């Protein structure tokens, strides 16, 4: 197992890009900043399963994002959160 690049509590930005191939990052989360909630295991990379075997595997993290970061007109409390699984190659370090 390769070591995890990101640690629980670290702030990360989800990459804002749109590869013209299957990928598992919804557009609403692209470019958004959140905090690593949990470090998960290694899994086949979705982009590499199309005419491939998903290798090399990538680590998945659960990222917690405040709802107010996602939606300007969010109707709820400041404490409401969205949590989403993101592969390591979609995450960037941020302040």
């Amino acid at each position, binding site marked *: 197992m390769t070591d995890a690049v990101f640690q629980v509590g670290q702030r990360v930005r989800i990459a804002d890009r749109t590869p013209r191939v299957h990928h598992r990052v919804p557009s609403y989360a692209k470019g958004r900043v959140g905090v690593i909630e949990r470090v998960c295991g290694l899994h086949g990379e979705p982009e590499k399963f199309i005419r491939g075997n998903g290798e090399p595997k990538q680590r998945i993290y659960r990222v917690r994002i405040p709802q107010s970061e996602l939606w300007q007109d969010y*109707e*709820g409390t400041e404490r409401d*959160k969205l949590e989403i*699984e993101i592969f390591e190659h979609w995450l960037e370090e941020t302040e």
Partner: protein
Amino acid sequence: MSDHDHDHARTFQADHAEPTSEGARVGLALRELLIEAGHYTPEEERAVIAAMQGASPRDGGRIVARAWTDPAYKERLLANGAAAIRELGYELEPYEFTVMENDDNTHNVIVCTLCSCYPRSLLGMSPAWYKSASYRSRVVREPRKVLAEFGVELTDDIDVRVHDSTAELRYMVLPQRPKRTEGWSEEELAALITRDSLIGTQRAFRTE
């Protein structure tokens, strides 16, 4: 096509007509071709269907009831859902399994916006609304409004956590044990649990 009889691959029964939509015909035709070419047999198909039909929210209910009555089990379930679920004898597809706990100030709800990922091997077929564009579109953006449509009214002292299941994890909500159920048996508690309470579109239980 070969001219021999295709009955072994057919789905038609006189009293239960086949679907005639274009998309369904693509599916029926593809199925017949794959069986005809020997990629799988009708017996294998029946076995897969029976296995998938065997899973139901009752199994989720047993897991929740165990967690409500055994604090050490609950701890293991929250730390490593898949291992704790297998501990009770359930077979799971090889996903990581994450159990999210509700409490007085937290409500969890699960969605898969990109397709409709759902813990099928444990909870059985997902509800139609879970796969609908409305639910997938809206619950991430206006969870409180969507939950209200299910009859779940959340006050501002309860935080909402929406979990978008986008990859290799599967989720289940661990609902809060209702008050006034002290002394209930694990079996009685398990009977309270519904499919929707495991997805997070139900919060309270009828204990009367």
